């Protein structure tokens, strides 16, 4: 029994003391589920930067899960210093429900606190056999689609909004035509996966569908990874998908990491970091980096949530709530 208790004490000591042994400072970054490699690379860059600046070593802990789950965990007491998410709404609830950050969080860093962004694009099979070029090719009878479910994933909502943005450009004020277009597009979807990674697996591993609709960053990643098997199609109009970041005021105060957390996020806007982000297939604002990557990120018209649906709150209420536009359109089939 004695040795057993000693074992427990030793185990607890090992588990809790590990970070303190290795670095001067510690920072916890909560992020979305597919950002692990991105931040693994950025953390190395930031550790170097911080050491040059202050002489201190930093250990950066990473937590990855769906960004809505992460927001919920932070509200319930996961003492994260910074949140780097893929949905603006998930940071908003840190203010509205958690009272952990001020209302004006988006104004504290450049570009709506979104150091990088992406848009929605298509991945098609080699040689583009169905000749898919733009959103209106997706509603053809012979084209079947794979996308994440707009009900359960931000990724799917973005695609829905991108298609809505295209239809608004195409049909102007004619609401019936816009609705018809969206209904036909949803009608061509073979599989609605619950999340982005699931949709990728359905399209790539199971070989279902003629086009996968998801983030451009994901589409480019797959095309890089499986070179020659797929082609990337960037539509003429798409959605501006922001990747918002914030430090969490209450927790950084408690943890004494305010300065470190702010620097961690501001440094994402530096040229080296922007280059790094671009290498992970995210679009950035930095002019020099933009020019270097001009061939990868094709020009297109990007529409923001404000232009398409008058802000996130309206979009959620009008389109994605139960009985909203999305439900009505899906019931039509």
């Amino acid at each position, binding site marked *: 029994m004695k040795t057993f208790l000693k074992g427990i004490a030793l*185990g*607890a000591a090992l*588990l809790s003391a590990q970070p303190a042994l290795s670095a001067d400072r510690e920072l916890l970054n909560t992020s979305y*589920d597919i950002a692990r490699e991105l931040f693994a690379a950025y953390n190395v860059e930031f550790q170097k930067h911080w050491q040059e600046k202050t002489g201190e070593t930093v250990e950066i*802990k990473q*937590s*990855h*899960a769906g960004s809505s789950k992460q927001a919920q965990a932070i*509200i319930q007491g996961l003492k994260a210093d910074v949140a780097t998410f893929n949905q603006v709404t998930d940071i908003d609830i840190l203010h509205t429900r958690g009272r952990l950050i001020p209302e004006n969080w988006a104004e504290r860093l450049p570009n709506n606190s979104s150091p990088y962004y992406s848009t929605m694009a298509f991945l098609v099979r080699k040689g583009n056999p169905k000749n898919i070029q733009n959103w209106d090719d997706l509603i053809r009878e012979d084209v079947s689609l794979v996308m994440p479910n707009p009900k359960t994933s931000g990724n799917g909502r973005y695609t829905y909004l991108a298609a809505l943005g295209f239809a608004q450009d195409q049909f102007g004020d004619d609401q019936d035509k816009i609705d018809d277009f969206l209904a036909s597009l949803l009608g061509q979807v073979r599989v609605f996966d619950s999340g982005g990674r699931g949709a990728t697996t359905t399209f790539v591993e199971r070989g279902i569908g003629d086009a996968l609709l998801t983030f451009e960053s994901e589409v480019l990643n797959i095309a890089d990874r499986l070179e020659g098997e797929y082609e990337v199609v960037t539509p003429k109009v798409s959605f501006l998908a922001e990747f918002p970041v914030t430090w969490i005021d209450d927790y950084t105060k408690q943890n004494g990491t305010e300065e470190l957390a702010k620097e961690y996020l501001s440094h994402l806007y530096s040229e080296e970091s922007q280059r790094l982000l671009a290498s992970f297939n995210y679009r950035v604002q930095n002019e020099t980096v933009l020019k270097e990557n001009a061939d990868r990120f094709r020009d297109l018209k990007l529409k923001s949530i404000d232009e398409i649906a008058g802000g996130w709150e309206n979009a959620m209420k009008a389109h994605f709530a139960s009985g909203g536009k999305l439900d009505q359109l899906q019931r039509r089939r």
Partner: protein
Amino acid sequence: MSLHRNRVGDQPWVRRTLIGLAMVLTVIFLVIPVVVIFTQALSAGWSTLAGNILDEYTLHAIGLTLFVALLTVPLNLIFGTALAWSVTRFKFPGRKLLITLIDIPFAVSPVVAGLLYLLLYGRNGWLGGWLSTHDIQLMFAWPGIVMVTVFVTCPFVARELIPLMQQQGSEEEEAGVVLGASGWRIFRKITLPNIKWALIYGVILTNARAVGEFGAVSVVSGNVRGQTNTLPLHVELLYQDYNIVGAFASASLLAAIAILTLVAKAFVEWKQAKSEHSAPETRGV
């Protein structure tokens, strides 16, 4: 029809079909997936497997998982034995209710269990304010993981003991009382030897579940790599990273623990059967 004269299975073709079907289903649903785990884990060779397992985060996940099991098993051993003892040796109002309540963790989905703990002990939970003013972090740290694991695994020991202790009755203990033995002595000398194998069996099941628990832990863990990431969570994380070989390497560790559990379980069952068989002579009431 021959059904009136023969029992089902008397005809050789019925017997063969049923046995064959059972075998085929076992192979498809149980054996092949286990084999796949190991072949996938080894698909890039032994050195890659070793590299994946010796990865800093994987090692931490293994350590954390074992640490959680190390705390959970003794807690539930004591809890389960105490509970089984009280409901089988004493009569009191609410006894039946208590036996029913012990099954709650079986009836409730683990995710719901995790959420319940979060609602109680999370920052916005009932006790959250008090905990936070005293700077006690339960959720999103190892204590929270231990708490939900204890919850999910608490019926195993008690469920194993209660039917056995009910069946054995309390005559032997009563004899001990009449002869003037102390409560502790009765437990140690009479009860414990009788329930020993069932107890070990319960411990094995508790351990297997504690090591493999995903749903409840996922809710309260916070998924911090190298801090609150248990082995099952680590498998999911690697899988989402497209690190399939790494995910299967970690999964093969879990599978290996499962197989060890089965072996231990089979051994205990065999021992148990033996001890029950020889019981009448040794006890000789």
